[in-house]
């Protein structure tokens, strides 16, 4: 078995249950607010500053599709500091830590959009940690039901056939080399939560999900993502960042079955039209 940090074990969901039975948030009475416990377990009780500038989360008030809910964080580092990581927490999900984004040191990431599963009405938190060790938090409440046990694979033959396939979409025609750029990485993967149980055999359909994503521009990291089962099937991340002039982008991903996939794409040069 892999050695896991506390945070990783919370990301991983079922492993979290094995490592720490106290972490079965879904079983807690509805009235209990899981957030204080998460602050202890995930953030070691580090003080957090509520903010409406450093990290701002955007989410619908009510999810239109609990298995596929778009979520955005806008980032703006405090003066004299830089954001190192952003942790996305869906408080009442079985695996509450949906993803940890590690921002490339030179990438100036200002916006991240992804898609998540939301199991029930819940608060969500985006926590930005700066290089100087300060935590900033943004909170949203969302109404949703059943996103984690929802059938994640709608078209099973297709899902198996295309697992690991990737696509990078590059938005807008960059006007200059230094202008912010926006790309979206799409990964074909069932990101199986392991929460579907076969009533006849009583076996859980095993969890298999994308655990690690790294998106590069040349040799520089744009963003690294520790993902879990709270990310939707076919994990997708759209990110706005500063281009370093590299002529290509690359993505390396790893799933919990230790399957590794890589792909690279030519960067659209400034002044040309986007695809």
């Amino acid at each position: 078995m892999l050695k896991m940090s506390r945070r990783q074990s919370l990301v991983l969901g079922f492993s979290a249950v094995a490592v720490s039975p106290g972490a079965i948030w879904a079983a807690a009475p509805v009235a209990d607010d899981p957030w204080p416990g998460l602050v202890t377990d995930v953030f070691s009780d580090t003080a957090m500053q509520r903010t409406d500038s450093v990290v701002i989360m955007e989410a619908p008030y009510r999810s239109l599709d609990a298995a596929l809910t778009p979520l955005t964080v806008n980032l703006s580092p405090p003066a004299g500091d830089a954001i190192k990581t952003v942790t996305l927490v869906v408080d009442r999900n079985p695996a509450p830590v949906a993803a940890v984004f590690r921002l490339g040191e030179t990438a100036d990431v200002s916006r991240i959009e992804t898609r998540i599963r939301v199991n029930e009405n819940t608060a969500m938190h985006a926590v930005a940690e700066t290089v100087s060790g300060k935590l900033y938090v943004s909170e949203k409440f969302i109404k949703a039901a059943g996103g984690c046990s929802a059938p994640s694979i709608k078209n099973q033959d297709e899902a198996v056939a295309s697992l690991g396939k990737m696509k990078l979409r590059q938005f807008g025609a960059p006007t200059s080399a230094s202008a912010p750029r926006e790309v979206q990485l799409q990964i074909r993967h069932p990101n199986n939560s392991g929460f579907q149980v076969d009533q006849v055999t009583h076996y859980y359909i095993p969890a298999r999900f994308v655990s690690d994503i790294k998106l590069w521009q040349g040799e520089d990291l744009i963003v690294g993502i520790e993902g879990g089962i709270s990310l939707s099937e076919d994990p997708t991340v759209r990110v706005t960042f500063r281009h370093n002039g590299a002529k290509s982008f690359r993505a390396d991903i790893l799933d919990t079955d230790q399957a590794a996939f890589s792909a690279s794409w030519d960067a659209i040069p400034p002044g040309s039209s986007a695809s």
Partner: protein
Amino acid sequence: MVCNGATVLSRRTLLTGLTALAGITQRAAAETPFALREIAPGIHVHLPKPALVAAANQGDIANLGLIVGDAACAVVDTGGSIAVGEKFHQAIAVITSKPVRYVINTHTHPDHLFGNAAFQGAGTEFVGHHNLPRALASRQEHYLVSFRQQLGESLMANFRFVPPTVLVQDEMILDLGNRRIVLRAWPAAHTDCDLTVFDEATKTLFTGDLVFREHVPVVDATLLGWLQVMDGLSAIKANLMIPGHGAPDETWPDGLLAQRAYFESLASDLRKDIQEGVGMSEAIETAAASERGNWQLFDEYNGRNASEAFKELEWE
């Protein structure tokens, strides 16, 4: 493949079973009449109004069908709860003494097959798409939880899954006694286990949820796959089409036009947004908005359809 020769229930077994059944459902049946009408010779249909599954309707929201042959009959879908399945079974017993030899499940959704257990008995085969067992295995836990919430504990108290005993690979012909029905397993569309039933004698096509009318279509598996399957469906020469939800169509394939218009509106709105780099959260708010007045339950399902279709179309 021809499938006949399954055990025929004895009259006595049948009556014993029905007597027991009648006891259980007498009160429920008295509360809600179960309408079953003969829409073509030997073809009986139950056509509830489009609605969300709720305790008040017992999950009776999907169209159900009965095809009566000389030797036996076949049931097309069983309703969204055992209570609905029992009412359906009881209504069949009033119409015919022929045994229900085949229970055909058009796909994996619970509003169509949670009544299966009401038909369980010696000699009854449960027939489904070859992908149906896999779909049920991966979804039943979710369906149990969500149907307990929607129907309430009492309607789900004696619930049990009845998986298919006969699987259709591609096409299968069932003989009900001087009456052949053709089952066809389709590639992924509404779900990845859609099955249609065609009665040769009356040229009646039961499409399951491959066709929605009135009730806004619900995209579960793949919008693009479904559009392709609709081309294949519309080539079937049918005099009468019974959709999974909504009114029958006697001018087939015209009954597909509204659904096609909805899908084309959804796809073209989303493609335009994807092309322009509009994000999912924004795109799903407005997709297919012009279709809103044409469908019931539009607000309940269009957002989810748009989300899933956006994800599918951005791979184009």
